């Protein structure tokens, strides 16, 4: 679109009358502005990605290379040994299984309970609806730490400390999930539900056969949010679990990092394997995350 500008054409441009001159400088300003934008965004992105790059590179280094000062950036003799050794030195497979169990199960339940509750709040008028919904939204502001001490005492009384049930039971529903689902379902026209009612469909059939297929994107969003949340859960498991048998990855990795600093090569490989599932999942489902944030973030 624009011609190449060398010094002579710049000079001649400057000599031309005011309006034209203004156009030329504006164009240069635009180009510089654009270049600055790219530079800033790229610099920021490098800083954001650096810990991941450093982790990936370090996890292919030998223990010997990791202990050199000053540290190397790229591995000199890349090795995969760390990834197999970590399974031999610590019960890594067990931790992985624990993480899968305590993430997948609550995610499935949460998506079901939240979509049902969201439907109830979005499409029915019933006594206590507004009060209940208000209570749920306002308890989103209650800090988790404010409830954690009594929660521990309650769970201890129920004998659920140090069990899978105790780990799972705190994550079977979520306020933001109910809110997200409600926002989605409010957009479904009531006529659709009434038409099904006239055809004799029960309320549960309406939910299963009309609502659920219509809110599939919301279900995907909710599934991803809940899963990544549970995969990274730290505070409750930290309190609930005191035996090695039940440790999940977010507990096990800091624990071993504190205990065996001399095996940092294994810690790095373990960390990489622990965060890989959510990172890979995110790469393919970025769209749903962004949609979910847009809906819950904007209506707040």
């Amino acid at each position, binding site marked *: 679109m624009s011609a190449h500008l060398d010094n002579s054409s710049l000079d001649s441009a400057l000599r031309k009358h005011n309006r034209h001159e203004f156009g030329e400088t504006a164009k240069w300003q635009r180009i510089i502005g654009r270049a600055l934008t790219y530079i800033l965004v790229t610099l920021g992105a490098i800083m954001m990605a650096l810990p991941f790059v450093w982790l990936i590179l370090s996890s292919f280094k030998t223990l010997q290379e990791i202990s050199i000062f000053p540290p190397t950036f790229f591995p000199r003799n890349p090795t995969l040994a760390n990834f197999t050794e970590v399974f031999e030195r610590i019960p890594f497979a067990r931790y992985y299984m624990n993480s899968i169990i305590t993430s997948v199960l609550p995610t499935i339940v949460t998506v079901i309970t939240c979509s049902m509750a969201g439907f109830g709040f979005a499409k029915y008028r019933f006594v206590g609806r507004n009060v209940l919904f208000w209570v749920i939204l306002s308890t989103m502001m209650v800090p988790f*730490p404010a409830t954690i001490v009594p929660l521990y005492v309650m769970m201890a009384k129920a004998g659920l400390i140090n069990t899978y049930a105790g780990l799972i039971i705190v994550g079977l529903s979520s306020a933001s999930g109910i809110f997200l689902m409600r926002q989605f379902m409010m957009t479904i026209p009531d006529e659709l539900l009434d038409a099904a009612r006239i055809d004799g469909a029960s309320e549960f059939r309406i939910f299963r056969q009309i609502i659920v297929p219509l809110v599939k994107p919301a279900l995907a969003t909710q599934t991803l949010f809940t899963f990544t949340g549970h995969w990274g859960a730290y505070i409750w498991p930290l309190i609930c679990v005191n035996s090695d048998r039940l440790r999940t990855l*977010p507990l096990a990795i800091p624990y071993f990092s504190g205990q065996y600093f001399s095996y940092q090569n294994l810690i790095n490989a373990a960390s990489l394997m622990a965060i890989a599932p959510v990172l890979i999942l995110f790469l393919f489902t970025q769209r749903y995350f962004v949609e979910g944030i847009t809906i819950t973030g904007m209506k707040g």
Partner: protein
Amino acid sequence: MSAEATTIRRRGGNERKYRMYRLQKASAPYIFILPGVVFYLMVTIVPMITGFWMSFHNWSIIRPTQPWVGLANYRKLLADPLFWTSMKNTLTYSLGVVPLQMALALLVALLLNTGIKGKKFFRLLYYLPVITPLSIAAVIWTWMYHPNLGIFNQIVSIIGLQPQDWLGDPNWAMFSVILVAIWSGIGYRMVVYLAALQGIPRAYYEAAAIDGAGRWDVFKYITLPLLKPTTLYILVTSVISSFQVFGLINVLTGGGPLDATQVVVSYIFKRAFGDLQFGLAAAMSFVLFGIILLITVIQWKFLGREVTYE
């Protein structure tokens, strides 16, 4: 299926079937919300009420009786210098993280909203820390911060700074924690801002261009006011979560060195699960809750006036 199935049932005198239909219709909403609401309130409201009750008792899990002590726990914590230290550290953390993180998130969102190429790729990179489990991210950063073997000292030496023991030096520990917190939370706020920016009608910008408004004027008089509800939302939620910081600090420093990063929640944990003083810990939780509530109300009151250009 007949379109008038229900009416036919009624006319046909099949009263029982009709009553069943009415019953399932009336109970349906309650059945729908029941599991979600019960599971949620069970781990929020119920422990809150229990905790409030506990805070007036000398409650320890190892003793058989929990005597009522009135306000003794509250008096005790107000007289505890370490509680005030942890309060001050929490405030430092919050002031260190929230404003800078919001400003950077807005800056990145504005830059990504200028129609540059690779927007999705950049958004992905900025969001990666958000989905990374925080305790594992903290382990990675501990490794980066290692005084001899970590890469962080190499980076700062490029810009001519002295190497430090980032997490082990009481003068630097809080700074190092704040840096990780900012890194881990920019992405989420950036995506919220980006969504809000895309919701601003183009007509406003076109009108401003016709009036000859400069970039800074457009930002100051159009973009920023229209982003106000979003900014308020991010501010309120960021402050709330900054006052609850725990996981990151527990892994990075464990509250140390010399309590330099001891925040309220890590102190609650120490009192509850270290000293088994559950009543005192519950009282501290409620003081924290009260402070969070107060700050939130103040923010709404002073900044919450709705801005609409419709």
